[in-house]
């Protein structure tokens, strides 16, 4: 049974997040880039047939893997620390609500807002593509969208944990940008370096892929496009052969573990803090 206090907190959080200017910029940018990618991807459709759809999807996946982590971690990463610095947390905590309720309401509110913005961005692109292609590829689009939402959920939780342990907005923002850079850009380089130095084999790379939520989401999205994962090279093919139809469960599971683990960490830290 959801209490009235929790519903009030959740509604307040969704209202504030949706009116956040960065989220609005994100939604507009997502929609504009998604539409552009769809449009320019479709220009070659006459020559490439349905492969044009795959090309647009791949572009959208790359866009998603940069933008969704950035907006998710930024919004949630400032959620608690901003309330603390803006002195609104003290007023909030003096109401008959628990710290756990505040944290969970923030998490759900932010995730709903980012999810809505992402669905809108994807929605415009997919509407345009379906207009051209017909409804046959709707399932693929929905799978990619679902993986994006799972990624947003996982990294919003991670951002919230960062926000809880950060002493200032500045520190939180630094940690978020660093985290984003490591997960989205540096991780691949580190893995390549480690593979060369430690002479890692393909089986060793699977846990490394599962540890990074961005990589887990990438595999889920590529799997939606092509279950052989051939786009990911030999490692992808190995993963496809090793896990086959269990890939969605395993890598979605990795994102769920990230979500639950980060929320648990945030809860423990927040409860143990003064204000």
């Amino acid at each position, binding site marked *: 049974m959801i209490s009235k206090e929790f519903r009030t907190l959740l509604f307040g959080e969704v209202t504030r997040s949706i009116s956040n200017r960065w989220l609005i910029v994100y939604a507009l940018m997502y929609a504009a880039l998604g539409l552009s990618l769809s449009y320019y991807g479709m220009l070659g459709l006459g020559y490439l047939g349905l492969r044009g759809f795959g090309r647009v999807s791949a572009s959208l996946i790359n866009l998603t893997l940069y933008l969704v982590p950035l907006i998710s971690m930024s919004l949630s990463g400032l959620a608690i620390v901003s309330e603390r610095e803006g002195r609104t947390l003290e007023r909030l905590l003096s109401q*008959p609500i628990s710290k756990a309720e505040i944290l969970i309401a923030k998490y759900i509110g932010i995730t709903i807002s980012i999810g809505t913005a992402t669905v809108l961005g994807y929605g415009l692109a997919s509407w345009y593509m379906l207009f051209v292609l017909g409804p046959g590829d709707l399932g693929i689009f929905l799978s990619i969208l679902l993986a994006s939402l799972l990624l947003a959920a996982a990294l919003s939780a991670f951002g919230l944990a960062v926000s809880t342990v950060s002493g200032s907005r500045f520190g939180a923002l630094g940690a978020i940008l660093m985290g984003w850079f490591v997960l989205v850009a540096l991780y691949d380089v580190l893995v390549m370096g480690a593979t060369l130095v430690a002479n890692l084999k393909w089986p060793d790379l699977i846990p490394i892929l599962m540890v990074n939520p961005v990589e887990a989401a990438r595999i889920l999205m590529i799997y939606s496009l092509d279950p052989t994962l051939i786009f990911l090279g030999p490692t992808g093919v190995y993963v496809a052969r090793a896990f086959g139809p269990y890939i969605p469960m395993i890598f979605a599971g990795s994102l769920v573990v990230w979500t639950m683990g980060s929320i648990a960490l945030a809860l423990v830290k927040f409860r143990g803090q*003064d*204000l």
Partner: protein
Amino acid sequence: MEAIEVTNLTKQFDSTRVLEGITFNIGEGKLILLLGPNGSGKTTLLRCLMGLIRFEGEVRIFGFDVSHMGKQARRLVGYMPQDSGFYADMTCAQVLDFFSNLKGVDVSLEDLLGPIGLLQKADAKVKQLSGGMKRKLGIAVTLLGDPPIIFLDEPFSDIDAKGKLDLLNTIRALRERGRTVVISTHTISGVLTMADEALVLQRNMPIRTIRSQLFASHFSPTYRVHVYSKERIPIKEAEVSPTGWVTISSRDLHSTLNTLAEYGIDISKAIVEEPTTNDLMMRLAGDDL
């Protein structure tokens, strides 16, 4: 049952012990002043009483242990922190709607904003309000649901004389309705005449309780109220300067402001000089209370 029971409360931040072994009870319907210079731990004590920060010892609000039953305890308390603590982009109406829903009370905007003169500002955003207006909104939110216990942290800072008088009248009304009120202040602010007891906090010293009968001998603060008036003010303590400014020295700020308002003086422009608790602490140091 006591309204508030505090037993052996100790609070330490890193290596600094701010509160040590504090024990006191506050009966229902009492008005208590929490006095002490800046940094003496008044705000920390109020936050402990609310269960907002962790501490050693025990605090009970009408029997509810705030460390383990904080939600139940906070349902019985209205707390006004030093900073307004409202979301800057919310309107006054949204603020009241949000907090009344959190408190689980059903109230109309007219009933809440009307008496504090903010009804016309219902659609104004918090960031557009003056400091005094935010204070008024803070009071309105604090008193949502008519809680039996009210904690006010430095309520007299950043408000003009008119706001001070309104606040003093509100506190008097709360007291008459049998509410338990704890006010943390580093200025005496005219509330001394209404209080039952003062709890005096000083760094590295045990908490001291001064009963109201002893206020006069220990505090006897003198306020100086400066107002501008072209008309003669028929108050014998009034000193008139050639520029038109009138200075009134008084030991009862509440009645002085009331009297001036009754004479039609615009007290919103009055300047009030009041003794700070730093001055009091200097006097209390070495006293055997």
